[in-house]
């Protein structure tokens, strides 16, 4: 469970160094555990390759590990001088100074010596189960056979390479002079974006204009519907519904005989009800709301009565309806004398 814990900075560094030492040859989960047992017996071993360093290639880099600076220097000296007595202490010194990377090398070397030829890789691939999807039973069998495979390999963090000089942010004194060709090209980019924004803006304005049509095919809100005599008591006139969306009725409201104009818009969801003369009610086809002759709601879901429009006797004696002004019963607006004509 130790590797499940969050790693401290020191741990990360240690792991990084370790992986550095191991190089490419990491072999599964066993390598990930930094055991002291590995490094302790390694110390005498480390001295052993150091001794013949002068004779053979010193600190055999074939192990895949990177050479430490001290080792590199030792190698260089050995090659230059060719003296055994000179190289040996240097190598020894390096081993003393930095025992860790040197200690890892033998283990890593061992890993690197594993066979890597095509035949063996193919054989290893063939050894594993058949390709393609497998059933749950197969997966379970495989897992049983090879329980180790389930253990997640630990991810080793490689050290971050130092930023090269060219990638470092330029210091304040090194500002580029203005007006170079590069800058000019960038300026042109702004021209492009600017003109794009301008065109988009103009187009938006143009499409906004479509919301306000030049011609509105709407009937005028004020219209005349004939003389009061044309409305006998107790009748609802439906002939203005198709054009203007109003019923003109002559009926009693609160015991008073009135001529009024009701808007033919249901107060539930705005469908157009129909006047049913046989039942003496307005009935909405959408959800079944019903209204009495005076527009009061009594059945279905409509929450409030139909709305009245302004109505008056014009100067020529005709009735004039103004649809732009509506009067709502629930707000007590039907008391307003401009929404009915007393007869």
């Amino acid at each position: 469970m130790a590797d499940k814990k969050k790693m401290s900075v020191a741990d990360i560094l240690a792991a990084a160094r370790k992986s550095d030492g191991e190089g490419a040859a990491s072999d599964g989960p066993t390598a990930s555990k930094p055991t002291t047992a590995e490094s302790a017996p390694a110390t005498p071993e480390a001295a052993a390759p150091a001794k013949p360093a002068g004779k053979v290639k010193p600190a055999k880099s074939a192990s895949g590990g990177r050479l430490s600076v001290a080792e590199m220097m030792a190698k260089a000296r050995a090659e230059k001088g060719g003296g055994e007595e000179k190289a040996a202490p240097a190598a020894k010194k390096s081993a003393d100074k930095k025992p860790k990377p040197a200690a890892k090398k033998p283990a890593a070397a061992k890993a690197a010596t594993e066979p890597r030829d095509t035949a063996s890789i193919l054989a290893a691939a063939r050894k594993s189960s058949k390709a393609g999807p497998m059933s749950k039973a197969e997966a379970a069998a495989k897992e049983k056979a090879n329980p180790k495979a389930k253990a997640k390999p630990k991810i080793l963090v490689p050290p971050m390479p130092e930023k090269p000089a060219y990638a470092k942010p330029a210091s304040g004194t090194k500002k580029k002079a203005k007006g170079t060709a590069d800058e000019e090209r960038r300026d042109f980019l702004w021209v492009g974006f600017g003109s794009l924004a301008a065109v988009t803006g103009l187009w938006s304005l143009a499409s906004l204009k479509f919301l306000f049509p030049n011609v509105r095919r709407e009937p005028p809100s004020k219209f005349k519907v004939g003389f009061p005599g044309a409305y006998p008591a107790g009748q609802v006139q439906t002939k203005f519904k198709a054009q203007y969306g109003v019923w003109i009725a002559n009926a009693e409201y609160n015991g008073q005989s009135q001529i009024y104009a009701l808007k033919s818009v249901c107060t539930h969801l705005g469908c157009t009800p129909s006047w049913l003369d046989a039942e003496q009610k307005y009935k909405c086809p959408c959800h079944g709301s019903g209204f009495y002759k005076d527009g009061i709601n009594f059945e279905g879901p409509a929450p409030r009565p139909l709305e009245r429009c302004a109505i008056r006797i014009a100067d020529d004696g005709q009735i004039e309806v103004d649809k732009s002004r509506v009067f709502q019963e629930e707000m007590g607006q039907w008391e307003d004398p401009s929404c009915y004509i007393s007869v």
Partner: protein
Amino acid sequence: MTHGLTDAQFFDKVSSFLVVFYLALALMNGIAALYLWRSGKMKTWLKLPLPLLGKVSISNALVWLTVGMGFAVLGAAAGGRPDWLSLPESFRDMINESTGPVIYSAGTTVILIILFFFRSFFVRPAVAWTIWNLMWLFLGLSMTDRDFFEIVAKPDNVPIVMLVFLLAFFTWLGTSQAVANDKRMANGEPPLEKLGNEKVLVWPDLVYPELICMIALTAFLIFWAIALPAPLEEAASSVKTPNPSKAPWYFLGLQEMLVYYDPWMAGVVLPSLVVAGLMAIPYLDFNKAGNGYYTIKERMFSYSIFQFGFLEMWITLIVLGTLLRGPNWNFFGPYEHWDAHKVQALNNVNLSEMFWEQFMPWISSFIPWISSSSWALPGTLSLADISPSLDPSNWPSPIAWLGGIVDPFLQFFSLLFGRELPGTLLVLGYFIALPPLMALTVFRNFYKRMGFIRFMVMANLLLFMGSLPIKMLLRWIFDLKYLISIPEYFFNF
């Protein structure tokens, strides 16, 4: 569609359809019998002693073959005298008179509950196949009724008829597997889905069937579009609404909800809550059973709530709205003529009116020291009420300005807690008092496992879901329009 046709012409039209219809049913049963015979799933149901042949074993394949032959005979009869193949007039009248929104909703609920509790009986292949045949037979026999034909054969409504049959099939398919799994798990066996090798290759096991389905579906849609042309209506007009005016079929459940609720509630709040609630399911569900296999017993709560919401609150309302709602959104029986002048008494009253104008005077008639005339709808408050001696017209402008801002709020809340107090208390009690009560009683274990917030979310979603049938019941039993009705501020519940 059949307007202006004489009865003889109508029967000609129906008979050409019914011959194909019954022959298809005969073929369906014949194929079923063949399948049972060839796959070795024949079962002997009973041994019939016959005088000449001795004991004859009647197997299921034989029965379905006979049924298929029966349908073939019906097909032949439909070619000759389709008017013979109809349900008795008295039976149709009885159905017409007994159905209404109440009987329909209560009936479907009862049927669904029976189907649910006796599911291990109804999912048996023989029982299910019998019901399936009866459904088709009912449709075929009803087709000779002009009013029924008018509704069912309307190109708009054909998908709903298909939906009823498809839904019956798929519900059976899922339930039968769930019942089988529940039985296996009761015996300590793993569910069926865990047995086989459930993983298959994408190519060709998945892609091929997909391709075939795609081609078949396209062919079907083309055939449908040719056979039943889309109905075109006259140009739209803002002052003329078709009667009845119906939403697209998938919205007809919503349209039915709108009959009982304010548009804001049924059109905005409840649909959004449906979507939000469906999205919340993964976060509310703590039952880990039933993952990857059909089961009912292990997920009783989730299953029953979902099926109630889907089959009862959505599908049956769509069927109701499509097939049984006629002109003026009146309810019409399946064999009833769509009469635009059908009179239905639907005098709906708000709760506040019931309370202040009927209930309180009635109560006070028993209590002598309260004068019965003092009860009326309480009015509204405004800033002017605070100092009635001052005439508002003489107010200095800052106070008048303040009144303009404060008055709407004052008015609204005085209505909410004055005139509409009974409804307000009921609604608040329903949404605030019920969840803790549920946590303490019925949903004790749920509360323990879900924690406070998750439980409250679930409880409120459940209560909102329950509010729809409750509101429908209140409308049917008490002619109640709204519990809280403040039309002055478009606030109705």
